[in-house]
């Protein structure tokens, strides 16, 4: 297990060969250029190799350029498994099921919003519950929560949060079919009761941004994006509900793994054969959590719109805040892919990776079918975020997947140490970014220096051809937990 064993395939990827670790069934491929390769943690390479030992793993265990060490699977990991011989693993999805990102566009331009950005950030902060121990504005009764789990974002629309037209602009239309509320523990229900419509903490955020660079004019047009336009990006997931579903099923899967005699190099890789009742139960519960997350982002978008309307005293039509797209970056899905020239259904695990389907894919909404799936990549709060599009090459190489964000380079404590004696909020303000955060430590932990430069990450996936750049977004206002 040494770095020497890694082999560079081309400018954008390296191979983790079969002899890197005993038991590897397929090789590993990590998408990094020579710059990002230097930041690779040995442990995350090991995790890519570990995933390659799991039964039924297809073609290669993959990692995107924002790869870093996770639990079992690395963050930035993608792995697809055969439906007959393969497995399902909660560790391949993560604790924050359907953590994801949505992008909302507006009719406003940067110069119209900047004079009122402080008021706007304050208003967003008061409208949208954020932070540790925050209470949501929605209290779910048991039956409501069950309906929400089945319907996803549609539930939120039915409650008056947003429009039905939003639904087609979400991955899976904001709802995975087959969620089963009867498989959800009482604990998950309890955690989910008051957390619908809450942003959470850590790296979750809501940002007011503007389009500062366009790389593909035609594609930007199709997405309704123009230079200097104000956008809002929301990054959050299924909150405590999803965390509990994962916690519950790690226990179930631990038993299942020994029952089905699956040899595991790491306990966090616990899994069960795709066709087993344990795996099917997990997937039905995971879908419920994914739906909880889509409803969550839908509610938050609605309140963000209201905050804009209050601050700028404009009608919804004049404001023109509509959804561009919403992507999941922690989820497992059954999808059709080509393997050795044959079309096969596989269970694709993406943990800290974004689906990036190409133009013409039947799962894309009609409005985007000819340009490809929008891919939304949030950066750290001080730099930038990106809009990309899925490509055919992603379909061929990465099971239709790409990166999901910047990825940390500094531990939380290192970041706090580095921030000591500094007022991060003021440094941000000097750069023209107004920030409000609940936790005192959050800003230090989440400062730009703590992350890889998102531009490097995005350049690698663009160069590798597994997605292509459309636009860059710069933050001017941020709320965080």
């Amino acid at each position: 297990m040494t770095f020497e064993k890694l082999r560079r395939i081309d400018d954008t990827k390296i191979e983790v060969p079969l002899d890197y670790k005993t038991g590897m069934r397929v090789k590993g491929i990590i998408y990094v250029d020579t710059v990002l390769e230097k930041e690779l943690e040995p442990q995350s390479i090991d995790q890519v190799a570990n995933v390659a030992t799991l039964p039924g793993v297809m073609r290669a265990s993959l990692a995107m350029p924002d790869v870093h060490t996770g639990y079992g699977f690395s963050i930035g990991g993608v792995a697809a498994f055969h439906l007959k011989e393969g497995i399902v693993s909660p560790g391949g999805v993560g604790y924050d099921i359907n953590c994801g990102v949505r992008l909302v566009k507006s009719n406003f331009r940067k110069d119209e919003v900047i004079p009122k950005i402080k008021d706007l950030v304050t208003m967003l902060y008061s409208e949208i519950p954020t932070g540790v121990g925050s209470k949501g504005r929605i209290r779910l009764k048991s039956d409501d929560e069950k309906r929400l789990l089945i319907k996803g974002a549609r539930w939120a629309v039915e409650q008056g949060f947003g429009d039905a037209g939003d639904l087609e602009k979400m991955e899976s239309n904001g709802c995975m079919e087959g969620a089963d509320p009867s498989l959800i523990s009482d604990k998950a229900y309890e955690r989910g009761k008051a957390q619908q419509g809450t942003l959470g903490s850590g790296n979750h955020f809501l940002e007011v941004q503007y389009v500062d660079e366009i790389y593909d004019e035609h594609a930007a047009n199709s997405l309704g994006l123009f230079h200097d336009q104000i956008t809002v990006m929301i990054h959050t997931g299924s909150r405590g509900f999803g965390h509990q579903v994962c916690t519950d099923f790690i226990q179930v899967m631990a038993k299942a793994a020994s029952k089905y005699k699956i040899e595991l190099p790491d306990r966090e890789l616990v899994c069960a054969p795709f066709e087993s009742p344990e795996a099917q139960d997990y997937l039905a519960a995971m879908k419920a959590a994914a739906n909880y997350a889509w409803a969550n982002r839908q509610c938050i978008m609605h309140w963000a719109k209201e905050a804009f309307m209050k601050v700028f005293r404009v009608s919804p039509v004049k404001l023109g805040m509509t959804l561009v797209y919403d992507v999941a970056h922690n989820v497992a899905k059954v999808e059709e892919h080509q393997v050795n020239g044959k079309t096969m259904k596989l269970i694709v695990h993406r943990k800290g990776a974004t689906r990036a389907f190409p133009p013409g894919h039947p799962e894309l909404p009609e409005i985007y079918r000819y340009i490809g799936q929008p891919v939304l990549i949030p950066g750290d709060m001080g730099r930038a975020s990106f809009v990309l599009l899925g490509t055919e090459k992603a379909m061929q190489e990465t099971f239709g997947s790409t990166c999901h964000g910047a990825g940390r380079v500094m531990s939380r404590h290192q970041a706090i140490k580095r921030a000591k004696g500094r007022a991060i909020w003021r440094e941000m303000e000097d750069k023209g970014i107004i920030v409000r955060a609940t936790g005192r430590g959050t800003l230090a932990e989440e400062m730009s220096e703590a992350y890889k430069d998102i531009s490097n990450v995005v350049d690698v996936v663009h160069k590798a051809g597994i997605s292509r750049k459309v636009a860059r977004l710069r933050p001017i206002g941020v709320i965080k937990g």
Partner: protein
Amino acid sequence: MYEIHMRDFEVLDISGDIGIKAFGKDMEEAFVHAAQGMYSLMTDLERVQEKKKIDITVENNSLDGLLVSWLNELIFNFDAYGFIGRKIEVNEFTPTLTLPPRGGGKGEGEVDKIASQPTYKIKASIRGEEFDQERHEGKLLIKAATYHKLRIEKIHGIWEIHVIFDV
């Protein structure tokens, strides 16, 4: 003879996530310190008062599983009800129940049933209060305790726990 000075817990620092290294003169104490260490990542414990008591019981069929379930139970009580603990009293701690003999003429299914029964148990009363964003500092939002690099071991007579949290 040297007197052993030890702190109850330390923060384990790894990129992306965070953990606790907890110590105890026995395993029970290390479990308590791991829990207090975890609470200290969530808020400043100095400001938590003992206003309320909750009783919890956790069982699992492995020791690692017991520790993870114990911490996850506390995370659940915080995340669902806002309860944050400060003082922990363990009423029962049975980490080493003997397994009934395997086989013994029983069918295979029977053995499986016995093996999957919980054999490790912790019962505790926790004093603390409901988290209040006005009064309490919100530090880290902990999603779960994980098995990642989990260690429970005795080193030079001291029990030591390493546990990493997903945040």
